[in-house]
């Protein structure tokens, strides 16, 4: 199994970051500023009111700060490393993905896994600092922590597939800049990074439930802060697993078609 031997291909993007300390410094600064601003904003908003949209002040701050930390999970700079699918299509280096014994979809997945683990280390470090500083609240119980961890795993997996679909677009459109911008906005808005979905009107929440974004971040964070009770967790985890299955099938199909396209055009 080539994929087992090649697991170390997952170190590509994290290594690129480690060899570029300015990028790490910038990421640290940005994350710190974002956390401080977001915590201040939500504390300020709650100064004049009590519970809003089912969330108390500490719940809202915890949700917002953890959403910022979670955004670090998939925010490594592939573009600077000329390692985005779009760049490989543009420079014609995508041919090498098809010249190796490791299938492109496996290489992509390994690389994404490495990024996720590296991003998780950052998010975890940030979480611990925030926890000690009293910016975020600890989980309500061990069960909540366990369900949150599982839900976050599924959510990040769903997000991986969403990003993959956008990357796969490049095999047809060569460029995915516009799609990526739309996706980032939709992801931030509909997953609750900008503001927890609980503050939006009902019709908006219903509409967003037909899209996979809610499953990426809103569900695990709502479970963590207790806005979704543990009794609802099995249903929510089921929805996340459902999105995972649908997107896994879709991306599998797209990989096949992408390969056919490369084979037809010769890279």
């Amino acid at each position, binding site marked *: 199994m*080539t994929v087992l031997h090649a697991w170390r291909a997952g170190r590509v993007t994290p290594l690129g970051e480690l060899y570029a300390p300015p990028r790490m410094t910038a990421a640290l600064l940005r994350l710190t500023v974002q956390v401080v601003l977001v915590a201040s904003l939500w504390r300020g908003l709650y100064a004049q009111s009590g519970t809003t949209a089912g969330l108390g002040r500490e719940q809202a701050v915890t949700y917002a700060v953890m959403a910022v930390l979670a955004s670090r999970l998939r925010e490594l700079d592939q573009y600077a490393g000329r390692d985005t699918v779009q760049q490989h299509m543009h420079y014609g280096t995508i041919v090498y993905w098809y010249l190796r014994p490791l299938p492109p979809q496996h290489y992509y997945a390994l690389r994404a896994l490495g990024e996720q683990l590296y991003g998780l280390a950052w998010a975890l470090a940030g979480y611990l600092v925030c926890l000690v500083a009293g910016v975020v609240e600890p989980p309500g119980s061990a069960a909540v922590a366990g369900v949150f961890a599982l839900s976050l795993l599924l959510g990040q997996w769903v997000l991986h597939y969403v990003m993959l679909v956008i990357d796969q677009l490049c095999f047809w459109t060569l460029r995915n800049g516009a799609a990526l911008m739309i996706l980032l906005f939709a992801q931030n808005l509909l997953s609750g990074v900008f503001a927890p979905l609980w503050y939006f009107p009902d019709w908006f929440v219903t509409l967003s439930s037909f899209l996979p974004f809610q499953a990426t971040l809103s569900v695990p964070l709502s479970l963590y802060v207790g806005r979704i009770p543990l009794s609802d967790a099995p249903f929510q985890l089921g929805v996340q697993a459902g999105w995972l299955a649908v997107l896994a099938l879709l991306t599998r199909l797209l990989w096949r078609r992408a390969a056919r396209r490369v*084979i037809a055009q010769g*890279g």
Partner: protein
Amino acid sequence: MSGSIEVRGLTRTFHTTVRRPGFGGALRSLVNPERVAKQAVCDITFDVAAGELLALLGPNGAGKSTTIKMLTGILTPTSGEARVAGVVPYRERERNARNIGAVFGQRTQLWWDLPVRESFAILRDIYEVPNVEHAARLREFDDLLDLSSFWDTRVRHLSLGQRVRSDLAAALLHDPPVVFLDEPTIGMDVVVKEQVREFLRNQVEERGRTVLLTTHDMTEVERLAERVVLINHGRLVLDGTLGEIRRRFGSTWQVRATLADPHAVLGPLPGIALVRREGPQVVFGPDGSGAPTVHQALKAVIERYEVSDIAIDEADLEDVMRAAYVHAEAG
């Protein structure tokens, strides 16, 4: 494993949309696109023996890269068949990938943000090369390509020459019997070009690798290839040794000799004509269609006359290939 390449009737047709000129034309193309078929490669047949270096030549757009892409398995032919080291490349891409290495001009397969050695290590993992073997091969390539002077540098900071040397090493680290090189030395300075040529010669002669090389650099062809396949407009127009091609398209040699006896009487030499004589300086050239090669002529002159100095002028390969291209266009 035998590293031979067999190509039989290989054909590739691309379907493209014709863009009509002007605004109205562009609109019509959008509503009613006109599709045309273009044969990039048409019924090409040739073989490359294991351990042979073959130069695949032709003008831009002749179909060289398309042929290489089919042989590497990236592109599926419309018809015909190819076998590379016993594998049909476009049917068993992953198996084929272990048998081949490839460098496509200035497109690098190295990771831009990582030091060269990290890229090599990632490829080692992908190709499942044992650590000991990998280290030994790195040492060997370092001796030939002087990699260690820059292999701890990030790829983005390498010069073109350093990057291409690294790419060559990366393509061969898993010890493939067959190597495809699509204009590997394009844009490189003469010193690095010579280093790369020496490396390729070593890999063919010492390691027995089969190399299929496309290039526009005739010095490279002259120094590396014994045999040449010329394609034009997707069709094979010539398959032969450099000597055969010279005989057919470049018989414009001259032998310049200085005779030891300036008054020597010159008799006839079969197929060789006296072009000019100025005292002891004589110039011979080919006489008619049955003229010998320049080396045969040289031998004949030396055997017949006592000479104190002798030199040959040959049409260079670039002139010969130009004549071959013109002939192919006319044909």
